[in-house]
């Protein structure tokens, strides 16, 4: 769930308010969005992708809130890390451009059968 909007980093662009699919944020009186409906957060991490200021932190725990320490998250390079992996932001290479998914079948562990070209049609599976 979303746990942090960094007041220090936030540039008050309100992009997170606009893009959140479950409408978790409200615009704040001081310009910094507030987490108004945390329990509606679906832990999809997409607000972090869109945040140009690396000001948001979505914890991996989807069904419980946790205490977070902004300083620690910043020091460990966690803030903005998902956006960096996706490759959004100036000077970055988009992950789509280096996507290895088409090649993972080449390193499949033994005895897993996957028909070529229709990788997800194994009976009952996806």
């Amino acid at each position: 769930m979303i746990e942090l909007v960094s007041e220090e980093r936030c540039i008050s662009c309100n992009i997170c308010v606009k893009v959140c699919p479950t409408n978790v944020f409200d615009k704040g009186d001081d310009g910094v969005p507030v987490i108004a409906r945390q329990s509606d957060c679906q832990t999809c991490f997409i607000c972090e992708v869109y945040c140009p200021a690396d000001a948001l932190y979505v914890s991996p725990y989807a069904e419980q809130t946790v205490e977070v320490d902004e300083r620690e998250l910043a020091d460990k390079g966690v803030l903005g890390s998902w956006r960096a992996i996706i490759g959004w932001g100036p000077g970055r290479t988009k992950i789509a451009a280096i996507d290895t998914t088409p090649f993972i079948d080449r390193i499949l562990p033994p005895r897993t059968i996957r028909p070529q070209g229709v990788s997800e049609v194994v009976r009952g599976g996806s």
Partner: protein
Amino acid sequence: MSDSAERRLTADVLVIGGGPAGAWAAWSAATNGAKVVLADKGYLGSSGATAPGGTNLLYLPPDKEMRIRAVEQRMKQGGYLAEPAWIHRVLDQVYTNMELIEQWGYPFVRDENGTPMRDHLHGPEYMSIMRKVVKRAGVKVLDQSPALELLVDEFGVGGARGVSRQDDQTWEVRANAVVIATGGCAFLSNGLGCNVLTGDGYLMAGELGAELSGMEFTRRYAPAPAFGSNTRSRLLGWATYYDEHGNELQGARQGDFLAERLLKGPVYAIMNKADTPEKQALLRKSHAIFFLPYDRAGIDVFTQPFPLTLRYEGTVRGTGGIRIAGDDCSTTVGGLFAAGDAATRERITGSASGGGAFNASWAICSGTWAGKGAAAYALSHQHSAATRDLRPAGRYGLGSASASNGTASSPAVTSQELIKEIQNQVLPLSINYFRTEAGLKQALHRLDEVWKRVNGQVPGNVLEQVRARETAAMAATARWMYTAALSRKESRSGGLHVLAEYPDQDEAQQYRLLVSGLEEISVRTEQVPVSGSPVVPAAAAAASGEVQAG
């Protein structure tokens, strides 16, 4: 809702939903000359199951032999409820559309021969391109604007009403054609990107008398971190499973293994089949979203055990949805079209799951066809939608003012109470995965009781109004699912409907099941249309010995 909306627009085509299907539908309708409005509950670009992660596609080069083999394989896996001509149609259309999306800027990687690898899309990139393309095509986009009910007259649908949830306004869009692209229904089970998928379009279409098809094919759960949301599980192909004592368990992510084990106790996995740094790096650059929750929880998935759960995926990776009547994805309601997971995917998946590839291609193709069909329908309509004598069609979960289902006014109840009760009947493996007639009957009975109370919700503001309507949609969807499941007294290939009392596939039930109605639910059968493309006869399927559902 009040009778006059605060924001009123008129268009030719209204697209409800801003995931892939809605985006392609809006682009297609606009490209075919229609004036288009797209309204999404969230944001076109981030909403839905596709946007946060990535998706594989059913995509094959135009190699006739390869495609015929793939179609034959799918026909068998799908219990012969799919149609070869429709699978071929999807293969043709998705190839064209992937060439387009590459032209629009999607940076497909190429293999050693320079061939673009167009069978996988990263969600954020894909959907941000789609947003740009849709807007460039002249579509008016209403973000954060959930539709609540359709407008109708004797000619059929004529638009919709909803709310703009961030500025507390109501809206009304009049349009002679409407494309429902609201996705499936995953019952707020916290799957990745899936909590916006609450069956809203099923209810809106159902209130206009549309039929739904394949709702019994909904026995689908996805492995996810026990603590997290990530239901993208393909990389578990590199996992070994363990119990809480560290004993290795024999099993795979597919089939009954995880469901059976999780009823006994916790299951852990370690990705130790990716046993070199090279393999690990390759996997990290494929499904990056898979690693995110574990990295953040401080778990090294290649060496440390992580706990798994199964999250219910309803019709998202099930196959049921609004019945498609025409090649243009029209429904049986005048002017109403359906695309993506809001529509049944049986025509290309049969009784098997379309999750992981087929559904993504279906969204692209059905969106393209529905948009074109809706544009043609709207542009040939003789009356402007602005002058039609339209009335709002919503009857359930819209607050007391709209409760007109003929019953005495229901006692007040909160949406949260009803959602909990719906989830109690739909999410448990013991009811919905290990399906028995007795279990489904009892659950359906309880859902019928929930249904009687959906009009007792008293929303106090716009957000509660949306939640109340979602609650009604989930209750309706669950009842359609279990009614259909009790009507299919067999287990069909693909594993999406397995009934303990009837463990075998029954050739006499090689038909589709259509449900309709809200107070009383009717069920009827539909024979699978025969097309000219190669089909393996039913007798061959029975002889193959591989049709038993897993």
